[in-house]
């Protein structure tokens, strides 16, 4: 009798706890860290229009290793550097690109999202943002090496909010190192793609 009671209360307790845990959903905006406004840009570009884009190889959250030169001759590439996971402007930039993927596909382009965060952080963040249908790459180790190579690593250790458009020959055709506190307008990127 006593064992039966204990067993039933345990079931009750587990069920109650499980339903409560699932009910206490946490809103993505509540998870976003609100940094103080930063200086618009804080780096020195190391590449220029017309340069061959420095090649790199980075791990993606899908488990693949992505090499930029693998797209040579096949796809135009948009590199979207955003400063950090779990920050406000960044958390709204990639879902917008995801919605607008048609524009990239129409111009035979792929978009690669890159931050200096590690893979687990990127996985959690992009999962919370919903579906992101393009590769998300970690420039975590060596820290910010790719961002540094392009000249978009800030002194604070995060990357700039920067876009690079690289054509199928591997040449840089568009650069936008944007004010880190603001979102770059989509049409500027799309117009650059259409101008290739």
């Amino acid at each position, binding site marked *: 009798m006593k064992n039966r009671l204990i067993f039933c209360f345990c079931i009750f307790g587990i069920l109650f706890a499980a339903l409560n845990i699932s009910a206490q959903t946490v809103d993505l905006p509540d998870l976003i860290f609100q940094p103080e406004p930063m200086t618009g840009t804080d780096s020195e570009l190391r590449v220029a229009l017309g340069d061959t884009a420095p090649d790199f190889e980075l791990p993606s959250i899908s488990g693949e290793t992505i090499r930029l030169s693998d797209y040579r001759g096949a796809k135009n590439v948009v590199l979207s550097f955003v400063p950090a996971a779990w920050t406000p402007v960044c958390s709204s930039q990639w879902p917008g690109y995801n919605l607008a993927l048609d524009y990239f596909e129409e111009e035979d382009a792929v978009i690669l999202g890159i931050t200096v965060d590690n893979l687990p952080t990127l996985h959690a963040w992009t999962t919370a943002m919903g579906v992101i249908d393009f590769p998300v790459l970690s420039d975590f180790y060596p820290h910010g090496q790719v961002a540094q190579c392009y000249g978009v690593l800030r002194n604070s250790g995060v990357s700039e909010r920067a876009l690079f458009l690289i054509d199928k020959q591997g040449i840089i055709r568009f650069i936008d190192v944007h004010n880190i506190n603001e979102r770059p307008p*989509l049409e500027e990127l799309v117009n650059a793609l259409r101008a290739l």
Partner: protein
Amino acid sequence: MKQKPKMRGLFKAKRFHPFAALASGILLALLHTAEAVEYCAVQVDTISAGASSENGCPTGLSEKSLPSLTQALSLKLPAPSLSSDRERLGLDANENEFSLAELDADLLVILVFDMYCHVCHQSAKNMRWVVDQIEGNPGIENYKVIGLGRGDTEFEVQTFRKKLKLNFPAVPDRDKQVTDALGVRRTPGGYILCKKTGEYRLLSSFRGYLSKRKAEEFLAPVFAADP
């Protein structure tokens, strides 16, 4: 020999059943879940049917709930780029900008989104449903529906409309002034303003993810309103 005291009620050995405890647990958890925070905390400000009426509209929330409704209605927005949208809003083809106050409507539905906001992407179908309900109701006259793209450019607003098949006109609120004045800090959001005589009053609002249930609650005061 002492006899063990008999247990009574629910815990009598013969009546007691483990599934009773399970059912109790489910019931209590469901009751708690009903009060739990929903995904993207939403406040739906509604009024009950039959509330007293002022200016021909049911009394809704006080204007405290909108930081500056008058200011929001008077600030200028860019006129829609599509002529069909201008027509739906009753705007002159030559006008480059307009204010919400200039829209001649007894019922004004404002739906706020952001092209880059994934919750807005998920809410879009229920925004469409809201508009379908209003447009499909012959009892609702002299209404206007407008979408505001908070922080978006014109291109981004039109991208959002095209990709998510919005069925209402939308314009950018690039500098966020109008949506700030409406009290929007998080997208998506929505407001229903009613005006029969005099000034607009808030009838209903929502913030955060727009589920079907919330969309129904958002619209409920419209259908409950006194004529």
